[in-house]
């Protein structure tokens, strides 16, 4: 019995190290930020791609289009190949499904109800590909692979409306309240899966190229630009007179693709490999007219971006802009609710707040704050009302989506000032409106 216990203990000790390494490789607690960047990019890329497909939706994916159900059953049917579109018989049903998909793409990009919207996107993406297997090419396959990982990952916890809603909820009681950034071991595992996906993709891509004479002989890049699909007169002018560039570009492509899966994992070499891979895809986008493919690939590479790089970038931005203080009227319910919404978009926490009723500002007189909200800048300047918001939206990344509204030359100020002034003057009345939020019971 004692022998058995010793064997068990030794076995346990022998397994402990690999188990630790396994956990370290897969399940390190990580924030979801890199995955969120991929989410936003994939959402926007899908929205653009399928949005532009809208005029052809019946041609591509309906029973009356290129691939009839009979043709599909005869040539593409397989036990595990399912598509929602095979069950939609009427054209309006296909159009409705397509519209829902587009709506979900937008929701996915902004991170609204991400936890279930992402699954609709995955089902949709697979359904499009399986309904018309002629259409998908490399990029569609990569999108599907990345989407699956994003579906499994706890995305929507940063850089999203879901996060904004959660922060706003916390701030409704107390504007100084803050939610800690989300991080989890499962987010780490999903990031790792995406990294493996990209490494495998590059590895097989390189291996396949090496097998071909076009690549081996160094002529592949010439053949690409001569091909009518990618014909580019300007590029050929350069390459024809300097053919050595063709050889260099061909071998450099293989070199980057073969080096990537091996050197991307090391701390020292990762930045170089990332830069090289992104450079490669920017070339594809520029000279081969493949912006969608290139964007998706770059979004896949984002999984290798270290969270600390993003943290440093955020800290640099915060330092560059400097701290800002918003002075508001804490007695006005509408102002507090608006501030809670506004601050929820400030992921880097660049703005601090001061309720002048309880904590008067040494910079701005109370009488001024009675009339409008004020923003105090690091250099001591104070901007009132609309100008305060205008200043902030350009400097808080979470509010960049409002920049077009606040920076239309002349028009923004022409319309913005009266709107703000009206709201400020009527804030008492607006505070009484609860927008469906139940009034606190009064005794």
């Amino acid at each position, binding site marked *: 019995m004692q022998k058995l216990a010793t064997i068990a203990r030794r076995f346990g000790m022998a397994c402990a190290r690999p188990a630790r390494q396994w956990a370290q490789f*897969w399940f390190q607690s990580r924030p979801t930020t890199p995955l969120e960047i991929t989410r936003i990019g994939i959402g926007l890329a899908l929205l653009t791609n399928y949005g532009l497909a809208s005029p052809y939706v019946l041609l591509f994916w309906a029973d009356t289009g290129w691939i009839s159900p009979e043709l599909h059953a005869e040539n593409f049917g397989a036990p595990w190949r399912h598509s929602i579109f095979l069950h939609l018989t009427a054209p309006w049903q296909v159009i409705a499904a397509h519209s829902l998909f587009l709506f979900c793409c937008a929701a996915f990009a902004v991170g609204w109800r991400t936890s279930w919207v992402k699954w609709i996107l995955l089902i949709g993406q*697979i359904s499009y590909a399986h309904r018309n297997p002629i259409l998908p090419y490399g990029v569609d396959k990569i999108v599907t692979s990345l989407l699956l990982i994003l579906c499994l990952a706890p995305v929507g916890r940063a850089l999203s409306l879901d996060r904004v809603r959660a922060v706003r909820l916390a701030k409704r009681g107390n504007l100084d309240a803050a939610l800690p950034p989300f991080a989890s071991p499962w987010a780490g595992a999903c990031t790792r899966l995406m990294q493996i996906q990209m490494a495998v993709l590059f590895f097989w891509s390189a291996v*396949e190229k090496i097998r071909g004479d076009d*690549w081996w002989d160094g002529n592949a890049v*010439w053949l690409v630009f001569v*091909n*009518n699909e990618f014909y580019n007169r300007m590029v050929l002018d350069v390459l024809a007179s300097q053919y050595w560039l063709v050889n260099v570009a061909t071998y450099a492509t293989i070199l980057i693709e073969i080096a990537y899966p091996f050197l991307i994992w090391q701390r020292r070499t990762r930045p170089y490999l990332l830069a090289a891979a992104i450079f490669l895809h920017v070339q594809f986008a520029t000279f081969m007219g493949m912006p969608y493919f290139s964007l998706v690939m770059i979004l896949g590479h984002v999984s290798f971006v270290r969270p600390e790089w993003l943290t440093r970038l955020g800290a640099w931005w915060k330092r560059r802009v400097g701290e800002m203080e918003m002075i508001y009227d804490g007695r006005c319910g509408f102002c507090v609710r608006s501030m809670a919404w506004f601050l929820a978009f400030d992921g880097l926490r660049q703005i601090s707040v001061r309720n002048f009723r309880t904590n008067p500002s040494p910079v701005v007189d109370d009488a001024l704050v009675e009339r409008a909200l004020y923003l105090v800048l690091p250099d001591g300047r104070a901007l009132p009302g609309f100008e305060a918001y205008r200043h902030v939206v350009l400097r808080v990344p979470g509010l960049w989506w409002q920049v077009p509204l606040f920076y239309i030359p002349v028009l923004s100020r022409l319309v913005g000032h009266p709107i703000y002034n009206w709201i400020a003057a009527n804030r008492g009345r607006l505070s009484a409106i609860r927008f469906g939020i139940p009034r606190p019971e009064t005794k």
Partner: protein
Amino acid sequence: MPADWWQTRLLYMAMSAFVAWHSAALLVAPAPATSAIAQSLRAVFDPYLTMLGLDNQWSFYAPNIGWGRQFRYAVEDAEGRRHNFAPAEHLSWYHPGYWWFRAWHDAIMTTPDLYGAQVAAQLCRDHASLKPVSVSLIRAQQGEFWPEDHLAGHRPMDPDFLSEEILSTVKCKS
């Protein structure tokens, strides 16, 4: 042992099993069809790979690129005149439609028996104003084109560098 401990352990094991399974599937999916080991593994992963659209070779422009080809068609009208069309030349490079229609053209050229009649019928309708008698589907195959050809002022799609093959000719219904 408390229930929480078991729950955490089980969850951890399930997550570990999944990441191992998915990584293995990613590695096996592009493996060559000629490898016996890869094929026996593929049988295990096949439903998972097919259902989720993960069954990919990742062979972008590989192993060879080749010289390219283009789908064209010719409409013969009632007076015996031939009107030539190259639909790909009207597609915009930066619109995704470029790739979708290219893929469709490629499918027509690869398997004209499958799509030829359907495409020709559609083209007869599209060109009804020409009073078409028949439509011929054509594969224009690019020939070798090297730097000296380019420097001599030629283009890869010049007739000297192209060979056309009629894939099928379909009579239009009057």
